[in-house]
């Protein structure tokens, strides 16, 4: 992967350290060169410091990114100059923002740089699930869209519900009504789209990708890949799927169930719910049926 970097010299070290040798860095000496580089149809990841941009520069970058979409990482300290440009970028680009000066910023930067979302795959996927997305309330829709486009965001169904200021139950119900399988699967799909580029277009070891995504082992990551894409990370690297094909499979896995006519707790996001101690397949548990600790019946009722 190639990175177009426009940062202050002291921040460059952080980028090199986070990249750990994976990827080539092309440092831009001034903002004009940066804007010129963004006007070319490549899909390199852009790493920039918004504090070094004026509002006009930010607008020019937004225009170029609209023409040739690519992942953007904004790495900056918190200052008024930076925030003026950050707001422009946040409203009109899929930029990911990292603020300097916090503990663990290196690991966050590593994830942002090594796992930038695949813009093409995201666009293809979002076009396929567009009809379902339209059925979601605006707050959830915006959040889910940004989750895929930015490659960051709520990392769990609970965090997603907190981010949209709704209860977990309401989010599950809205997602089920729109025909999505579950919030968990959406979060996992966002993980996959952010890892897709690293798997298909880099030589980053699988254990590093799994670790950056929060999976304990590559095997756990592969289990999710198999669930969502019918393939493992190794097979995907050896024989990358065509983006349209990957988007088709992924869209199908996200929306395998049809939209419900009625919403109800029993229908909502069955996958996310823990096995009930009182309900089996939506029915009351007969007294004679004993349950395992996992919640499954010992024998079929």
């Amino acid at each position, binding site marked *: 992967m190639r990175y177009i970097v426009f940062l202050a010299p002291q921040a460059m070290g952080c980028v090199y350290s986070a990249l750990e040798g994976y990827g080539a860095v092309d440092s831009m000496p001034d903002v004009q060169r940066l804007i010129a580089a963004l006007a070319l149809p490549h899909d390199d990841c852009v790493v920039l410091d918004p504090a070094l941009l004026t509002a006009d520069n930010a607008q020019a970058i937004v225009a170029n990114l609209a023409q040739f979409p690519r992942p953007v990482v904004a790495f900056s300290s*918190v*200052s008024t100059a930076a*925030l003026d440009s950050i707001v422009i970028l946040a409203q009109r680009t899929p930029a990911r923002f990292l*603020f300097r*000066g916090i503990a663990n910023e290196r690991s966050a930067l590593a994830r942002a740089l090594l796992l930038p979302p695949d813009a093409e795959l995201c666009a293809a996927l979002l076009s396929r699930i567009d009809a379902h997305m339209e059925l979601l309330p605006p707050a959830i829709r915006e959040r889910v869209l940004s989750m895929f486009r930015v490659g960051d965001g709520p990392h*769990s169904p609970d965090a997603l519900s*907190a981010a949209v200021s709704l209860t977990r139950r309401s989010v599950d119900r809205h997602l089920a009504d729109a025909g999505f399988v579950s919030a968990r699967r959406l979060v996992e799909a966002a993980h996959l789209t952010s890892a897709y580029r690293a798997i298909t277009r880099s030589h980053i070891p699988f254990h590093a990708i799994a670790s950056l995504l*929060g999976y304990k082992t590559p095997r756990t990551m592969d289990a999710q890949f198999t669930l969502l894409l019918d393939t493992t990370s190794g097979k995907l690297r050896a024989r990358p799927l065509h983006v349209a094909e990957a988007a088709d499979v992924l869209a199908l896995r996200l929306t395998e169930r049809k939209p419900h006519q009625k919403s109800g707790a029993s229908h909502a996001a069955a996958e996310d719910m823990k096995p009930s101690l009182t309900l089996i397949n939506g029915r009351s548990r007969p007294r004679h049926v004993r349950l395992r600790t996992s919640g499954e019946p010992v024998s079929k009722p």
Partner: protein
Amino acid sequence: MIDMSFLQAFATAQSDAEFARAAAGFTLLQIYDTVRTNGLTSFQLDAIRKVEHELASMDAAPSVRTALEAMICALPFWESGGPVRVGRQATYSALLMYGQALGSEGEWPIAESVFALAGMDAELDGETWLTANARLLMGRAARMCADWDTARIAYRRAAQLGREAGDFSIVFRAQIGEANILWSRGDLRTARLRLTSIAKRAKQSCPSVVPRITLALAGVANTAGEYEQAITLAFGILDTLDDDELKYQTLVDLASFLTDYGLPSVASTALRVVQRTAPDRHVRRHATLNLFFLAAHHEDAATFDALHAALADEGLTARQKAQYALFTAQGCRRLGRLSEARAAAEQAIRIAKQYQHFQLVFEAEAELRDILLTHESASTTMPWRSRRRESTGVGASDDVTPNPSAVSIALDSVSPGIRRVVDSLESMAADSELVMSGAQ
């Protein structure tokens, strides 16, 4: 948001500048609270501008000033940014920076409450990664306040959230923090087992945290009296570190282990490297205070006086002021300046009592008793009985409390492994001196 830690800071402030610093932070947190609850209005913007105006003429540490300025910049953008809510992320980041800056100035109780606030609010906004960071830092702040239960709860939550956010670095650092609580409380065996198991898992999924675990293991070994192992472990990771913060923490800890082993002059060498080359002011100040401790116990009068004068001009935190007075008392007693020693010990007791650093109160009282005994012995020409354990020194890093001045051992009698450490440190010190002279 009225927090006891702020009220305590106001009540114990020793100067107008100290009061103003705490008041600026407190006011900004109040403004943050109202912006969060009611949104941004012209009243809050006016209040932010006033704090900004006050801050311009305030005597504050650079890190605290930077963090407060970051909050001033971020608050007006609270609701900006679209679906990513980048204004909120900036504000939470600024809050965490403020907490970190307070911690580096030794104001851990306030830092703890700032981290608690940031963690709670960021979690409500679904900002998992920032929440995990806030809980991790809160765990550390609570540990520094000896609030073990809160620290443990915060670390556990940080580990959960770190896992959720997919950041193994946070997960393992939280687990290291929890193990550190164990050995801080004396359970060395469990701490060692826990750290070894964390190291095994971290090697697979997050190798970047392994040096931190090794350093923690070295701390456990040192506390257990296995000084050579502690020195070897700490020295072993020194070359592998690309993180400045951890590198200097390792050097300071190594100095502490060397002191305990009985090589205070080598410890001084390590501390001088930190004092000359560390980029952060508080790290350099901490190293100087450690050097002063060693000078008080081992060095000649000229070195002791030079460091005493150098520290007199430093902006020390309350705890450091008490330590400075205590080490002055210890050094003066050793050099036979008993009236000066007595005044310094009394000052140490007064400051430590005022800021409720009870361990230091106890040590300063013991020191005062020794000074009086020495005085009496001198008048009856009785020789002073030397003791192996005199007092607790400066915490080398925050995680390590070094043992007191140990009996010095000759360099000729150390093992080849330790000899290699000594040679490397001397070469590093020579390099740092060259850098210093080049810079000058």
